[in-house]
């Protein structure tokens, strides 16, 4: 596989609250390769946003990184993000790693033209050549299928939601970052607009070659866009594999449970079932495997011993004691109609 851009190693993050510590992310490890798109999927509170925020040092003040490191490589030079000076981090953000936040269409300054906002960003990161910035901006706006001249002279309120989202993607990659983090990139958008964004993102990525981490609870979006998928549950990564692995040959009961709970449009009547119970309290998480209280395959061992996140076949990792039961159960998942 191609070179590793971002190597996340055993990262743990807690939030300090009055009741104790919320273990928002525990022992997260994964590698992000050049040009790939990795989807972090999981329900609210599974820690997917927390991990991503730690890469750009944007965690809220109540959060504390309790362990691990994130190695970032550009042009053959490798550094640990967690040891960055403030100045280096400022430079790293946007230049190396850009994040597009959820619902960020509203992040534009309403009284500045789009052009000013692009110039502002570039100036803040030391790009002084206005002509060069405008040239790149026009290129990027064309790439996201907008009318470049018109968009440049528009105020944010003159653009529709979809146009704003596309402008924002262009702004995100303005400084040619290697890594782009997208938090729920299409959630607030209509279906037809969502489709346009997906197409634009795919095209941008193939042209500019950046890597994407996208955070979503939407399995369909992951199926559409991701090269690899990581399932997160209760602050832990419970499964990681190629998109084919996760959707067609899941090894973790939670991944399987998610797949069994989403209706599929092109199928006749679906046989769906929810995962029983509710997500756990992360201040006082269940012992052993955190999923065991909701797991249909749980046995005595699951309650006592935390399963190891290990490689079951090349590139396919899962943390479960009884993957053989999942393998048996998944046979019914893709029965063809």
């Amino acid at each position: 596989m191609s070179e590793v851009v971002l190597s996340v190693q055993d990262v743990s993050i807690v939030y300090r609250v009055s009741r104790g510590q919320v273990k928002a992310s525990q022992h997260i490890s994964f590698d992000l390769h050049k040009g790939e798109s990795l989807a972090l999927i999981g329900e609210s509170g599974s820690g997917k946003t927390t991990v991503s925020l730690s890469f750009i040092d944007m965690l809220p003040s109540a959060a504390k990184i309790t362990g691990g490191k994130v190695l970032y490589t550009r042009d053959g030079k490798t550094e640990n993000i967690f040891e960055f000076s403030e100045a280096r981090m400022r430079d790293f953000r946007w230049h190396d790693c850009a994040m597009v936040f959820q619902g960020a269409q509203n992040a534009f300054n309403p009284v500045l033209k789009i052009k000013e906002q692009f110039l502002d960003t570039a100036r803040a990161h030391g790009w002084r050549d206005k002509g060069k910035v405008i040239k790149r901006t026009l290129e990027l706006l064309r790439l996201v299928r907008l009318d470049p001249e018109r968009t440049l002279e528009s105020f944010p309120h003159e653009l529709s939601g979809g146009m704003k989202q596309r402008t924002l993607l262009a702004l995100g990659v303005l400084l040619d970052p290697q890594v782009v983090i997208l938090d729920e990139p299409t959630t607030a958008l209509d279906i037809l607009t969502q489709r346009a964004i997906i197409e634009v993102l795919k095209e941008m990525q193939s042209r500019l070659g950046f890597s994407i981490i996208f955070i979503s609870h939407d399995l369909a979006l992951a199926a559409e866009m991701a090269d690899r998928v990581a399932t997160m549950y209760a602050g832990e990564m419970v499964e990681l594999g190629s998109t084919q692995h996760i959707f067609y040959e899941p090894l973790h009961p939670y991944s399987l449970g998610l797949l069994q709970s989403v209706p599929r449009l092109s199928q006749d009547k679906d046989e769906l079932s929810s995962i029983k119970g509710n997500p756990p309290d992360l201040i006082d998480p269940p012992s052993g495997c955190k999923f065991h209280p909701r797991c249909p395959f749980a046995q005595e061992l699951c309650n006592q011993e935390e399963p190891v996140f290990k490689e079951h076949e090349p590139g396919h990792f899962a943390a479960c004691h009884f993957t053989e039961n999942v393998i048996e159960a998944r046979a019914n998942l893709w029965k063809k109609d």
Partner: protein
Amino acid sequence: MSDAIIEFKQIYKSFKKGRTSIPVLQDINLAVKKLEYLCLVGESGCGKTTSGKILVGLLKPSSGQIFFEGQDVSTLRGSEYTRYRRAVQIIHQDPYASLNPTHTIYDILSFPLFRHKLVKNRAQARERAGQLLETVGLTPVRDVIDKYPHQLSGGQRQRVSIARALTTNPKVIVADESVSMVDVSIRISILNMMMNMRESLGVTMIFITHDLALAKYFAWQGRIAVMYLGRIVEIGPTPDITHFPQHPYTKSLLSAIPEPDPDRTRTKDQIRLRSEDIPRLTELPPGCSFHPRCPWFVPGLCDKQLPQLAPVADSKGPVQVACLPMTQGKPLIPYES
């Protein structure tokens, strides 16, 4: 009279904003049969929520009539009107906003009970509230009944919201995006519960959603009405709509939706719209409001004449579409400008 429990006849609704009038619903005709599964589907701004609010009497239509069990609602007075309001209830989208944070679950459920004189004293109210919580699967009741909404998870709150809608023993419940804010893994259990209420309590369910896959699951045995910019553009039995969409808008929607199936979603035929922008409701295009985006636009027809819902020419099926070329039996020919 038909066997409709609730019926819209030529409903129009417009909102005033300054001096302009925004037409939100235009000429909606819809008869919901007793115990039918009906889904209103459409993107934001298509008028589906407004329809729901008009249905339950939270908004008055600008013109047109609503019939409840054969009676024109606008003619009902006093106790007759109360009976109607009691019989149709709504479950709102956001369980975080729709429950008063300063009231306990018991308070929330007992207010309507006292208001409608369905119980005589607190002991009765508590018992009835307990029964309702059991109906929606919030057991053991004593763990929930004296809690405040913030102590419950999103899914639990939505169940409380459903229990509240049931307090008045309604005959019709409008569920407006009732699971869109609930985690994926528990959506289906809430949907299944609502579907069971139809059997066990004899409630007719009208489900409003932007998610066609959920609509398909919910209304597989019923009908889907697809709305676009304030009008119903296609209505028919769910399997027909999801597997053989007729209206160009429905076709584009279905082709654009990503599916949680990597192989299928990446090989889907994409319909390219002529424009990605949704027209503003204040500047609706003449004729068919989809014509500026429609890939099969017929100049001189679609931009001149307003299409009415009618069966596709030469088809004996129950599906109705508002598309002039289709209802006049003309072939759909890609438009080249």
